[in-house]
Protein backbone atom coordinates (compact mmCIF):
# COMPACT_ATOMS: atom_id res chain seq x y z
CA UNK A 1 0.00 0.00 0.00
CA UNK A 2 2.79 2.42 0.94
CA UNK A 3 4.71 1.50 -2.21
CA UNK A 4 1.94 2.72 -4.47
CA UNK A 5 2.03 6.19 -2.86
CA UNK A 6 3.91 8.95 -4.71
CA UNK A 7 6.95 10.39 -2.92
CA UNK A 8 5.05 13.43 -1.62
CA UNK A 9 2.39 11.10 -0.23
CA UNK A 10 5.02 9.03 1.56
CA UNK A 11 6.56 12.14 3.09
CA UNK A 12 3.06 13.10 4.22
CA UNK A 13 2.43 9.64 5.69
CA UNK A 14 5.72 9.76 7.60
CA UNK A 15 4.96 13.14 9.20
CA UNK A 16 1.33 12.27 9.97
CA UNK A 17 2.47 9.06 11.70
CA UNK A 18 5.21 10.95 13.56
CA UNK A 19 2.77 13.61 14.79
CA UNK A 20 0.19 11.04 15.89
CA UNK A 21 2.92 9.20 17.81
CA UNK A 22 4.13 12.47 19.39
CA UNK A 23 0.59 13.36 20.40
CA UNK A 24 0.47 10.10 22.36
CA UNK A 25 3.97 9.88 23.84
CA UNK A 26 5.11 13.53 23.48
CA UNK A 27 4.35 14.76 26.99
CA UNK A 28 6.13 11.77 28.55
CA UNK A 29 9.34 12.30 26.54
CA UNK A 30 9.34 16.08 27.06
CA UNK A 31 12.67 17.05 28.67
CA UNK A 32 11.12 19.56 31.10
CA UNK A 33 7.79 20.00 32.90
CA UNK A 34 5.46 22.09 30.74
CA UNK A 35 5.09 25.03 33.13
CA UNK A 36 8.61 25.08 34.58
CA UNK A 37 10.84 28.11 34.08
CA UNK A 38 14.16 26.42 33.33
CA UNK A 39 16.38 29.00 31.64
CA UNK A 40 17.62 32.38 32.92
CA UNK A 41 17.18 34.12 29.56
CA UNK A 42 13.85 34.66 27.83
CA UNK A 43 13.43 34.15 24.07
CA UNK A 44 16.61 32.05 24.01
CA UNK A 45 17.99 30.90 20.68
CA UNK A 46 18.53 27.27 19.63
CA UNK A 47 20.93 25.53 22.03
CA UNK A 48 21.92 22.03 23.12
CA UNK A 49 19.97 22.39 26.37
CA UNK A 50 16.90 23.84 24.65
CA UNK A 51 16.81 22.58 21.04
CA UNK A 52 13.91 24.87 20.08
CA UNK A 53 14.88 27.81 22.30
CA UNK A 54 13.01 29.21 25.28
CA UNK A 55 9.79 31.22 25.52
CA UNK A 56 8.85 34.58 27.00
CA UNK A 57 9.22 33.29 30.56
CA UNK A 58 12.29 31.15 29.95
CA UNK A 59 10.40 27.85 29.58
CA UNK A 60 11.66 25.10 27.30
CA UNK A 61 9.96 25.44 23.89
CA UNK A 62 10.42 21.78 22.91
CA UNK A 63 8.49 20.64 25.97
CA UNK A 64 5.79 23.24 25.41
CA UNK A 65 5.37 22.23 21.78
CA UNK A 66 5.16 18.53 22.69
CA UNK A 67 2.35 19.31 25.13
CA UNK A 68 0.68 21.81 22.79
CA UNK A 69 0.68 19.31 19.92
CA UNK A 70 -1.33 16.84 22.02
CA UNK A 71 -3.90 19.58 22.61
CA UNK A 72 -4.08 20.64 18.98
CA UNK A 73 -4.23 17.11 17.56
CA UNK A 74 -6.58 15.78 20.23
CA UNK A 75 -9.12 18.60 19.90
CA UNK A 76 -9.03 18.47 16.12
CA UNK A 77 -9.41 14.67 16.01
CA UNK A 78 -12.48 14.76 18.27
CA UNK A 79 -14.11 17.64 16.38
CA UNK A 80 -13.33 16.27 12.91
CA UNK A 81 -14.57 12.79 13.90
CA UNK A 82 -17.78 14.29 15.27
CA UNK A 83 -18.29 16.31 12.06
CA UNK A 84 -17.60 13.35 9.77
CA UNK A 85 -19.76 10.87 11.71
CA UNK A 86 -22.67 13.30 12.08
CA UNK A 87 -22.43 14.37 8.44
CA UNK A 88 -22.28 10.78 7.17
CA UNK A 89 -25.16 9.61 9.39
CA UNK A 90 -27.42 12.50 8.39
CA UNK A 91 -26.47 12.00 4.73
CA UNK A 92 -27.42 8.31 4.90
CA UNK A 93 -30.77 9.21 6.44
CA UNK A 94 -31.38 11.91 3.80
CA UNK A 95 -30.33 9.75 0.86
CA UNK A 96 -32.25 6.63 1.85
CA UNK A 97 -35.39 8.44 3.00
CA UNK A 98 -35.43 10.77 -0.02
CA UNK A 99 -38.43 13.03 -0.61
CA UNK A 100 -39.13 15.91 1.72
CA UNK A 101 -36.76 14.60 4.43
CA UNK A 102 -33.88 14.89 1.97
CA UNK A 103 -35.11 18.28 0.76
CA UNK A 104 -35.39 19.78 4.27
CA UNK A 105 -32.07 18.40 5.48
CA UNK A 106 -30.19 19.53 2.37
CA UNK A 107 -31.66 23.04 2.64
CA UNK A 108 -30.75 23.23 6.32
CA UNK A 109 -27.16 22.18 5.62
CA UNK A 110 -26.91 24.67 2.74
CA UNK A 111 -27.84 27.43 5.17
CA UNK A 112 -25.37 26.28 7.81
CA UNK A 113 -22.59 26.20 5.23
CA UNK A 114 -23.25 29.88 4.48
CA UNK A 115 -21.85 30.92 7.85
CA UNK A 116 -18.06 31.02 7.50
CA UNK A 117 -16.53 28.80 10.21
CA UNK A 118 -14.44 31.59 11.69
CA UNK A 119 -17.52 33.81 12.02
CA UNK A 120 -19.46 31.05 13.79
CA UNK A 121 -16.52 30.48 16.13
CA UNK A 122 -16.14 34.20 16.91
CA UNK A 123 -19.88 34.60 17.55
CA UNK A 124 -20.01 31.49 19.77
CA UNK A 125 -16.99 32.61 21.83
CA UNK A 126 -18.43 36.12 22.16
CA UNK A 127 -21.70 34.73 23.52
CA UNK A 128 -20.62 31.82 25.68
CA UNK A 129 -16.95 32.43 26.45
CA UNK A 130 -14.19 30.11 25.30
CA UNK A 131 -13.92 26.58 26.64
CA UNK A 132 -12.59 23.33 25.24
CA UNK A 133 -16.09 21.85 24.95
CA UNK A 134 -17.44 24.91 23.15
CA UNK A 135 -14.50 24.93 20.70
CA UNK A 136 -15.04 21.26 19.84
CA UNK A 137 -18.80 21.77 19.44
CA UNK A 138 -18.32 24.85 17.24
CA UNK A 139 -15.76 23.19 14.99
CA UNK A 140 -17.90 20.06 14.69
CA UNK A 141 -21.04 22.05 13.85
CA UNK A 142 -19.33 24.22 11.27
CA UNK A 143 -17.72 21.31 9.39
CA UNK A 144 -20.70 18.93 9.50
CA UNK A 145 -22.47 20.48 6.46
CA UNK A 146 -19.39 19.97 4.27
CA UNK A 147 -19.15 16.31 5.26
CA UNK A 148 -22.92 15.97 4.74
CA UNK A 149 -22.73 17.30 1.18
CA UNK A 150 -19.95 14.93 0.15
CA UNK A 151 -21.53 11.93 1.89
CA UNK A 152 -24.97 12.66 0.47
CA UNK A 153 -23.74 12.86 -3.11
CA UNK A 154 -21.82 9.59 -2.59
CA UNK A 155 -24.83 7.89 -1.01
CA UNK A 156 -27.20 9.04 -3.75
CA UNK A 157 -24.82 7.61 -6.37
CA UNK A 158 -24.35 4.31 -4.58
CA UNK A 159 -28.10 4.03 -4.03
CA UNK A 160 -28.74 3.75 -7.79
CA UNK A 161 -26.32 0.80 -8.18
CA UNK A 162 -27.93 -2.51 -9.06
CA UNK A 163 -26.91 -4.43 -5.96
CA UNK A 164 -28.63 -1.84 -3.79
CA UNK A 165 -31.73 -2.05 -5.98
CA UNK A 166 -31.58 -5.83 -5.55
CA UNK A 167 -31.46 -5.49 -1.77
CA UNK A 168 -34.47 -3.16 -1.89
CA UNK A 169 -36.29 -5.59 -4.19
CA UNK A 170 -35.78 -8.56 -1.87
CA UNK A 171 -37.47 -6.49 0.86
CA UNK A 172 -34.64 -5.29 3.09
CA UNK A 173 -35.52 -2.45 5.42
CA UNK A 174 -34.10 1.05 4.80
CA UNK A 175 -31.76 1.12 7.85
CA UNK A 176 -30.30 -2.22 6.69
CA UNK A 177 -29.83 -0.95 3.15
CA UNK A 178 -28.18 2.24 4.44
CA UNK A 179 -25.75 0.61 6.85
CA UNK A 180 -24.96 -2.74 5.22
CA UNK A 181 -25.27 -1.97 1.52
CA UNK A 182 -24.50 1.75 1.02
CA UNK A 183 -22.14 2.70 3.86
CA UNK A 184 -19.27 0.26 3.07
CA UNK A 185 -18.97 1.81 -0.40
CA UNK A 186 -18.58 5.29 1.04
CA UNK A 187 -15.90 4.58 3.62
CA UNK A 188 -12.79 5.34 1.54
CA UNK A 189 -13.82 8.73 0.15
CA UNK A 190 -15.21 9.69 3.56
CA UNK A 191 -11.86 8.86 5.18
CA UNK A 192 -10.13 11.22 2.73
CA UNK A 193 -12.78 13.82 3.53
CA UNK A 194 -12.17 13.25 7.24
CA UNK A 195 -8.51 14.13 6.67
CA UNK A 196 -9.56 17.40 5.03
CA UNK A 197 -11.93 18.21 7.90
CA UNK A 198 -9.06 17.54 10.32
CA UNK A 199 -6.88 20.10 8.52
CA UNK A 200 -9.71 22.67 8.54
CA UNK A 201 -10.31 22.16 12.26
CA UNK A 202 -6.60 22.44 13.12
CA UNK A 203 -6.39 25.72 11.18
CA UNK A 204 -9.62 27.05 12.71
CA UNK A 205 -8.77 26.20 16.32
CA UNK A 206 -5.16 27.30 16.16
CA UNK A 207 -6.32 30.52 14.49
CA UNK A 208 -8.77 31.12 17.35
CA UNK A 209 -6.06 30.39 19.91
CA UNK A 210 -3.73 32.72 18.06
CA UNK A 211 -6.34 35.48 18.49
CA UNK A 212 -6.49 34.67 22.22
CA UNK A 213 -10.05 33.35 21.85
CA UNK A 214 -9.31 29.63 21.72
CA UNK A 215 -7.66 27.37 24.28
CA UNK A 216 -7.21 29.41 27.46
CA UNK A 217 -4.20 29.47 29.82
CA UNK A 218 -2.79 27.57 31.66
CA UNK A 219 -3.53 25.13 28.84
CA UNK A 220 -1.92 25.91 25.52
CA UNK A 221 -2.26 24.48 22.04
CA UNK A 222 0.16 25.29 19.24
CA UNK A 223 -1.77 28.43 18.27
CA UNK A 224 -1.65 29.76 21.86
CA UNK A 225 2.11 29.20 21.87
CA UNK A 226 2.48 31.50 18.85
CA UNK A 227 0.33 34.12 20.52
CA UNK A 228 2.02 34.15 23.91
CA UNK A 229 5.44 34.59 22.32
CA UNK A 230 4.45 37.08 19.64
CA UNK A 231 6.35 39.94 21.29
CA UNK A 232 9.56 37.97 20.71
CA UNK A 233 9.02 38.26 16.96
CA UNK A 234 11.01 41.47 16.81
CA UNK A 235 13.97 39.83 18.51
CA UNK A 236 13.83 37.01 15.97
CA UNK A 237 13.06 34.43 18.67
CA UNK A 238 12.48 30.84 17.52
CA UNK A 239 9.71 30.61 20.13
CA UNK A 240 7.30 32.44 17.79
CA UNK A 241 7.98 30.57 14.60
CA UNK A 242 8.55 27.02 15.88
CA UNK A 243 4.95 26.29 17.00
CA UNK A 244 3.66 27.78 13.74
CA UNK A 245 6.02 25.54 11.76
CA UNK A 246 4.81 22.59 13.83
CA UNK A 247 1.21 23.32 12.77
CA UNK A 248 2.23 23.68 9.13
CA UNK A 249 4.13 20.35 9.06
CA UNK A 250 1.03 18.67 10.50
CA UNK A 251 -1.54 20.20 8.12
CA UNK A 252 0.64 20.11 4.99
CA UNK A 253 1.54 16.45 5.54
CA UNK A 254 -2.12 15.45 6.00
CA UNK A 255 -2.89 17.24 2.72
CA UNK A 256 -0.04 15.51 0.88
CA UNK A 257 -1.10 12.12 2.25
CA UNK A 258 -4.74 12.59 1.16
CA UNK A 259 -3.67 13.79 -2.28
CA UNK A 260 -1.43 10.73 -2.65
CA UNK A 261 -4.20 8.33 -1.63
CA UNK A 262 -7.00 9.87 -3.69
CA UNK A 263 -4.68 10.35 -6.68
CA UNK A 264 -4.06 6.61 -6.54
CA UNK A 265 -7.78 5.96 -6.22
CA UNK A 266 -8.36 7.97 -9.39
CA UNK A 267 -5.84 5.94 -11.39
CA UNK A 268 -7.40 2.71 -10.12
CA UNK A 269 -10.80 3.84 -11.36
CA UNK A 270 -9.45 4.84 -14.77
Amino acid at each position, binding site marked *: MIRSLPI*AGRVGLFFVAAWLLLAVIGPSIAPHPVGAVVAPDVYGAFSAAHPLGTDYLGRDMLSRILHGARFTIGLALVAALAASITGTTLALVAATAGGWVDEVMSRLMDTLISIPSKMLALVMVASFGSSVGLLILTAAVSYTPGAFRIARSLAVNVKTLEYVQAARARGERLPYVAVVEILPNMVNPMLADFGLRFVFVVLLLSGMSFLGLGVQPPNADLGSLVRENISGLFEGAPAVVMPAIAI*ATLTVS*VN*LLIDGISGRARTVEA
Partner: protein
Amino acid sequence: MAEARPAALPGWRAGVPARWRGTTAWLIANRIGSGALTLLIVSAVIFIITGWLPGDAAQEALGQSATPETVAALRAQYGLDKPPYVRYFDWLVGLLSGHLGQSFTASMPVTELIAARLPKSLVLAAVTAAVSVPIALAIGIVSAMWRGTLLDRALNIATLSMVAVPEFLVATIAVLIFAVKLQWLSALSNAVDVSTPTQFFRTYAMPVATLCFVVIAQMARMTRAAVIDQLSASYVEMAVLKGARPARVALRHALPNAIGPIANAVALSLSYLLGGVVIVESIFNYPGIASLMVDAVSNRDMPVVQACAMIFCFAYLLLVLVADVVAILANPRLRHR
Protein backbone atom coordinates in the same frame (compact mmCIF):
# COMPACT_ATOMS: atom_id res chain seq x y z
CA MET B 1 -29.44 24.76 -11.60
CA ALA B 2 -28.82 24.94 -15.32
CA GLU B 3 -31.55 22.44 -16.15
CA ALA B 4 -34.97 23.68 -17.22
CA ARG B 5 -37.45 23.63 -14.37
CA PRO B 6 -40.10 20.89 -14.31
CA ALA B 7 -43.63 21.84 -15.34
CA ALA B 8 -45.21 21.45 -11.90
CA LEU B 9 -43.87 24.16 -9.66
CA PRO B 10 -44.77 24.48 -5.99
CA GLY B 11 -46.35 27.53 -4.42
CA TRP B 12 -46.08 30.99 -5.89
CA ARG B 13 -43.87 29.87 -8.75
CA ALA B 14 -46.87 28.20 -10.35
CA GLY B 15 -48.29 31.66 -11.03
CA VAL B 16 -45.30 32.70 -13.15
CA PRO B 17 -45.98 32.60 -16.91
CA ALA B 18 -44.42 29.56 -18.51
CA ARG B 19 -42.38 31.52 -21.04
CA TRP B 20 -40.41 33.18 -18.22
CA ARG B 21 -39.39 29.97 -16.54
CA GLY B 22 -36.03 28.63 -17.54
CA THR B 23 -34.82 31.90 -18.98
CA THR B 24 -31.50 33.25 -17.75
CA ALA B 25 -33.19 36.19 -16.03
CA TRP B 26 -35.60 33.83 -14.25
CA LEU B 27 -32.77 31.59 -13.04
CA ILE B 28 -30.78 34.57 -11.77
CA ALA B 29 -33.82 36.10 -10.05
CA ASN B 30 -34.46 32.73 -8.45
CA ARG B 31 -30.87 32.50 -7.27
CA ILE B 32 -30.94 36.01 -5.81
CA GLY B 33 -34.21 35.22 -4.04
CA SER B 34 -32.81 32.09 -2.42
CA GLY B 35 -29.68 34.04 -1.46
CA ALA B 36 -31.82 36.65 0.31
CA LEU B 37 -33.76 33.91 2.10
CA THR B 38 -30.48 32.29 3.23
CA LEU B 39 -29.26 35.65 4.52
CA LEU B 40 -32.46 36.03 6.55
CA ILE B 41 -32.02 32.58 8.12
CA VAL B 42 -28.35 33.31 8.80
CA SER B 43 -29.34 36.52 10.58
CA ALA B 44 -31.78 34.52 12.73
CA VAL B 45 -29.05 31.99 13.61
CA ILE B 46 -26.61 34.76 14.56
CA PHE B 47 -29.26 36.52 16.63
CA ILE B 48 -30.24 33.31 18.42
CA ILE B 49 -26.61 32.64 19.35
CA THR B 50 -25.76 36.19 20.40
CA GLY B 51 -28.95 37.77 21.63
CA TRP B 52 -31.76 35.37 22.44
CA LEU B 53 -30.82 35.28 26.09
CA PRO B 54 -30.34 38.86 27.23
CA GLY B 55 -27.47 37.46 29.27
CA ASP B 56 -25.72 39.79 31.60
CA ALA B 57 -24.68 42.45 29.15
CA ALA B 58 -26.17 45.13 31.37
CA GLN B 59 -24.82 43.49 34.52
CA GLU B 60 -21.38 43.23 32.96
CA ALA B 61 -21.41 46.81 31.76
CA LEU B 62 -22.17 48.06 35.27
CA GLY B 63 -20.10 45.60 37.30
CA GLN B 64 -21.03 43.37 40.24
CA SER B 65 -21.74 46.26 42.62
CA ALA B 66 -24.66 47.63 40.59
CA THR B 67 -28.07 47.62 42.22
CA PRO B 68 -30.86 45.61 40.56
CA GLU B 69 -32.65 48.88 39.75
CA THR B 70 -29.80 50.39 37.74
CA VAL B 71 -29.27 47.08 35.91
CA ALA B 72 -32.96 47.02 35.01
CA ALA B 73 -32.77 50.64 33.85
CA LEU B 74 -29.81 49.90 31.61
CA ARG B 75 -31.58 46.79 30.25
CA ALA B 76 -34.52 48.98 29.31
CA GLN B 77 -32.14 51.47 27.67
CA TYR B 78 -30.58 48.72 25.50
CA GLY B 79 -34.04 47.27 24.92
CA LEU B 80 -33.05 44.00 26.62
CA ASP B 81 -36.30 43.80 28.61
CA LYS B 82 -38.43 43.07 25.52
CA PRO B 83 -39.23 39.50 24.40
CA PRO B 84 -36.64 37.89 22.06
CA TYR B 85 -38.68 37.95 18.85
CA VAL B 86 -39.40 41.67 19.28
CA ARG B 87 -35.72 42.34 19.81
CA TYR B 88 -34.88 40.26 16.70
CA PHE B 89 -37.36 42.21 14.63
CA ASP B 90 -36.02 45.54 15.94
CA TRP B 91 -32.49 44.42 15.22
CA LEU B 92 -33.41 43.36 11.70
CA VAL B 93 -35.08 46.70 10.99
CA GLY B 94 -32.02 48.42 12.43
CA LEU B 95 -29.71 46.39 10.18
CA LEU B 96 -31.67 47.40 7.10
CA SER B 97 -31.88 51.07 8.04
CA GLY B 98 -28.29 51.36 9.29
CA HIS B 99 -29.17 51.87 12.95
CA LEU B 100 -27.12 49.17 14.60
CA GLY B 101 -27.43 50.32 18.20
CA GLN B 102 -24.88 51.55 20.67
CA SER B 103 -21.53 49.87 21.31
CA PHE B 104 -21.27 48.65 24.93
CA THR B 105 -17.61 49.52 25.32
CA ALA B 106 -16.90 52.40 22.93
CA SER B 107 -20.09 54.32 23.88
CA MET B 108 -20.47 55.22 20.22
CA PRO B 109 -23.06 54.17 17.65
CA VAL B 110 -21.98 50.89 16.01
CA THR B 111 -22.66 52.41 12.59
CA GLU B 112 -19.96 55.05 13.16
CA LEU B 113 -17.43 52.46 14.34
CA ILE B 114 -18.07 50.36 11.25
CA ALA B 115 -18.12 53.31 8.86
CA ALA B 116 -14.60 54.18 10.02
CA ARG B 117 -13.26 50.65 9.60
CA LEU B 118 -15.09 49.05 6.68
CA PRO B 119 -13.46 51.07 3.84
CA LYS B 120 -10.00 50.06 5.11
CA SER B 121 -10.90 46.37 4.96
CA LEU B 122 -12.36 46.81 1.50
CA VAL B 123 -9.13 48.45 0.30
CA LEU B 124 -7.14 45.53 1.74
CA ALA B 125 -9.44 43.03 0.00
CA ALA B 126 -9.36 44.93 -3.29
CA VAL B 127 -5.56 45.17 -3.36
CA THR B 128 -5.31 41.47 -2.50
CA ALA B 129 -7.71 40.54 -5.28
CA ALA B 130 -5.87 42.75 -7.78
CA VAL B 131 -2.57 41.05 -6.95
CA SER B 132 -3.76 37.47 -6.51
CA VAL B 133 -6.13 36.99 -9.46
CA PRO B 134 -3.61 37.44 -12.32
CA ILE B 135 -0.96 35.32 -10.60
CA ALA B 136 -3.40 32.54 -9.72
CA LEU B 137 -4.90 32.45 -13.22
CA ALA B 138 -1.42 32.24 -14.78
CA ILE B 139 -0.41 29.37 -12.48
CA GLY B 140 -3.71 27.54 -12.98
CA ILE B 141 -3.75 27.83 -16.77
CA VAL B 142 -0.07 26.94 -17.16
CA SER B 143 -0.36 23.84 -15.02
CA ALA B 144 -3.53 22.76 -16.84
CA MET B 145 -1.85 23.16 -20.25
CA TRP B 146 1.17 21.15 -19.17
CA ARG B 147 -0.86 18.67 -17.19
CA GLY B 148 1.08 15.66 -15.90
CA THR B 149 4.50 17.20 -16.51
CA LEU B 150 7.10 17.75 -13.82
CA LEU B 151 6.11 21.46 -13.69
CA ASP B 152 2.46 20.59 -13.10
CA ARG B 153 3.30 18.12 -10.37
CA ALA B 154 5.65 20.59 -8.67
CA LEU B 155 2.96 23.29 -8.79
CA ASN B 156 0.40 20.79 -7.47
CA ILE B 157 2.53 19.98 -4.42
CA ALA B 158 3.35 23.66 -3.88
CA THR B 159 -0.27 24.85 -3.98
CA LEU B 160 -1.46 21.82 -2.01
CA SER B 161 1.00 22.72 0.75
CA MET B 162 0.23 26.44 0.63
CA VAL B 163 -3.50 25.99 1.25
CA ALA B 164 -2.74 24.12 4.49
CA VAL B 165 -0.32 26.67 5.96
CA PRO B 166 -1.82 28.86 8.71
CA GLU B 167 -1.83 32.60 7.90
CA PHE B 168 0.05 33.46 11.06
CA LEU B 169 3.05 31.36 9.98
CA VAL B 170 3.25 33.23 6.67
CA ALA B 171 2.80 36.54 8.49
CA THR B 172 5.41 35.87 11.19
CA ILE B 173 7.98 34.66 8.67
CA ALA B 174 7.32 37.72 6.50
CA VAL B 175 7.87 39.97 9.53
CA LEU B 176 11.05 38.08 10.48
CA ILE B 177 12.52 38.48 7.00
CA PHE B 178 11.34 41.90 5.85
CA ALA B 179 10.94 43.85 9.07
CA VAL B 180 13.48 42.28 11.45
CA LYS B 181 16.33 41.01 9.28
CA LEU B 182 16.20 43.27 6.22
CA GLN B 183 14.38 46.17 7.91
CA TRP B 184 12.68 47.13 4.65
CA LEU B 185 9.15 47.31 6.02
CA SER B 186 7.45 48.19 9.27
CA ALA B 187 5.85 45.27 11.10
CA LEU B 188 2.67 47.24 11.81
CA SER B 189 0.26 48.40 9.16
CA ASN B 190 -1.66 51.02 11.12
CA ALA B 191 -0.19 53.95 9.23
CA VAL B 192 -2.75 56.71 8.79
CA ASP B 193 -1.06 58.35 5.83
CA VAL B 194 -0.94 56.26 2.68
CA SER B 195 -0.92 59.12 0.19
CA THR B 196 2.43 58.41 -1.46
CA PRO B 197 3.09 55.14 -3.32
CA THR B 198 6.01 54.32 -1.02
CA GLN B 199 3.92 54.65 2.12
CA PHE B 200 1.11 52.70 0.49
CA PHE B 201 3.54 49.92 -0.38
CA ARG B 202 5.10 49.86 3.08
CA THR B 203 1.68 49.63 4.71
CA TYR B 204 0.11 47.05 2.44
CA ALA B 205 3.01 44.88 1.29
CA MET B 206 3.03 42.34 4.11
CA PRO B 207 -0.71 42.00 4.86
CA VAL B 208 -1.46 41.67 1.16
CA ALA B 209 1.35 39.19 0.57
CA THR B 210 0.14 37.07 3.49
CA LEU B 211 -3.45 37.05 2.27
CA CYS B 212 -2.37 36.35 -1.30
CA PHE B 213 -0.35 33.31 -0.24
CA VAL B 214 -3.37 31.16 0.63
CA VAL B 215 -5.82 32.72 -1.85
CA ILE B 216 -3.49 32.26 -4.83
CA ALA B 217 -2.99 28.58 -4.02
CA GLN B 218 -6.72 27.99 -3.68
CA MET B 219 -7.60 29.92 -6.83
CA ALA B 220 -4.85 28.33 -8.92
CA ARG B 221 -6.06 24.84 -8.01
CA MET B 222 -9.67 25.62 -8.91
CA THR B 223 -8.62 27.36 -12.15
CA ARG B 224 -6.54 24.33 -13.15
CA ALA B 225 -9.51 22.04 -12.55
CA ALA B 226 -11.82 24.30 -14.58
CA VAL B 227 -9.44 24.47 -17.56
CA ILE B 228 -8.72 20.73 -17.48
CA ASP B 229 -12.47 20.12 -17.49
CA GLN B 230 -12.67 22.03 -20.78
CA LEU B 231 -9.52 20.49 -22.24
CA SER B 232 -11.07 17.03 -21.89
CA ALA B 233 -14.20 18.06 -23.87
CA SER B 234 -14.72 16.52 -27.29
CA TYR B 235 -14.47 19.81 -29.24
CA VAL B 236 -10.90 20.14 -27.92
CA GLU B 237 -10.15 16.62 -29.11
CA MET B 238 -11.51 17.67 -32.52
CA ALA B 239 -9.22 20.71 -32.61
CA VAL B 240 -6.22 18.53 -31.69
CA LEU B 241 -7.14 15.98 -34.38
CA LYS B 242 -7.35 18.61 -37.10
CA GLY B 243 -3.81 19.60 -36.19
CA ALA B 244 -4.08 22.81 -34.17
CA ARG B 245 -1.02 23.59 -32.06
CA PRO B 246 -1.36 23.03 -28.27
CA ALA B 247 -1.15 26.74 -27.43
CA ARG B 248 -3.87 27.52 -29.96
CA VAL B 249 -6.06 24.71 -28.63
CA ALA B 250 -5.73 26.01 -25.09
CA LEU B 251 -6.05 29.75 -25.72
CA ARG B 252 -8.40 29.86 -28.71
CA HIS B 253 -10.63 26.82 -28.18
CA ALA B 254 -10.66 25.92 -24.49
CA LEU B 255 -10.13 29.24 -22.71
CA PRO B 256 -13.23 31.12 -23.99
CA ASN B 257 -15.40 28.27 -22.74
CA ALA B 258 -13.49 28.05 -19.46
CA ILE B 259 -14.04 31.71 -18.58
CA GLY B 260 -17.33 30.98 -16.81
CA PRO B 261 -15.94 28.20 -14.61
CA ILE B 262 -12.78 30.25 -13.95
CA ALA B 263 -14.79 33.31 -12.85
CA ASN B 264 -16.76 30.95 -10.62
CA ALA B 265 -13.48 29.68 -9.14
CA VAL B 266 -12.21 33.23 -8.59
CA ALA B 267 -15.34 34.32 -6.70
CA LEU B 268 -15.34 31.20 -4.52
CA SER B 269 -11.62 31.52 -3.76
CA LEU B 270 -12.02 35.15 -2.77
CA SER B 271 -14.43 34.01 -0.06
CA TYR B 272 -11.40 32.42 1.63
CA LEU B 273 -10.20 35.99 2.17
CA LEU B 274 -12.87 36.45 4.83
CA GLY B 275 -11.26 33.93 7.18
CA GLY B 276 -7.73 35.07 6.45
CA VAL B 277 -8.42 38.73 6.96
CA VAL B 278 -9.36 38.09 10.61
CA ILE B 279 -5.88 36.78 11.38
CA VAL B 280 -4.00 39.20 9.13
CA GLU B 281 -5.66 42.37 10.46
CA SER B 282 -4.94 41.29 14.03
CA ILE B 283 -1.30 40.38 13.47
CA PHE B 284 -0.41 43.55 11.56
CA ASN B 285 -2.62 45.75 13.73
CA TYR B 286 -4.48 46.86 10.62
CA PRO B 287 -7.47 49.04 11.60
CA GLY B 288 -10.12 47.20 9.57
CA ILE B 289 -13.44 45.63 10.41
CA ALA B 290 -12.03 42.18 11.24
CA SER B 291 -9.78 43.55 13.98
CA LEU B 292 -12.77 45.55 15.22
CA MET B 293 -14.72 42.31 15.49
CA VAL B 294 -11.93 40.43 17.27
CA ASP B 295 -11.67 43.22 19.85
CA ALA B 296 -15.45 43.23 20.24
CA VAL B 297 -15.43 39.45 20.83
CA SER B 298 -12.76 39.84 23.53
CA ASN B 299 -14.81 42.60 25.19
CA ARG B 300 -18.15 40.83 24.58
CA ASP B 301 -19.44 43.96 22.90
CA MET B 302 -22.45 42.20 21.39
CA PRO B 303 -23.95 44.92 19.14
CA VAL B 304 -20.58 45.25 17.38
CA VAL B 305 -20.11 41.46 17.15
CA GLN B 306 -23.58 41.01 15.63
CA ALA B 307 -23.11 43.78 13.07
CA CYS B 308 -19.63 42.61 12.02
CA ALA B 309 -20.77 38.99 11.77
CA MET B 310 -23.65 40.03 9.50
CA ILE B 311 -21.30 42.05 7.29
CA PHE B 312 -18.96 39.08 6.90
CA CYS B 313 -21.80 36.63 6.22
CA PHE B 314 -23.30 39.07 3.71
CA ALA B 315 -19.95 39.40 1.91
CA TYR B 316 -19.58 35.62 1.84
CA LEU B 317 -23.08 35.05 0.46
CA LEU B 318 -22.54 37.81 -2.10
CA LEU B 319 -19.36 36.14 -3.41
CA VAL B 320 -21.08 32.75 -3.64
CA LEU B 321 -24.03 34.41 -5.37
CA VAL B 322 -21.73 36.09 -7.90
CA ALA B 323 -20.04 32.73 -8.53
CA ASP B 324 -23.41 31.07 -9.20
CA VAL B 325 -24.71 33.90 -11.39
CA VAL B 326 -21.52 33.80 -13.45
CA ALA B 327 -21.99 30.05 -13.86
CA ILE B 328 -25.57 30.60 -15.06
CA LEU B 329 -24.50 33.34 -17.50
CA ALA B 330 -21.64 31.23 -18.83
CA ASN B 331 -23.84 28.24 -19.59
CA PRO B 332 -23.95 28.12 -23.41
CA ARG B 333 -27.25 26.21 -23.37
CA LEU B 334 -28.97 29.31 -22.00
CA ARG B 335 -27.27 31.88 -24.19
CA HIS B 336 -29.85 32.16 -26.98
CA ARG B 337 -33.10 31.86 -25.11
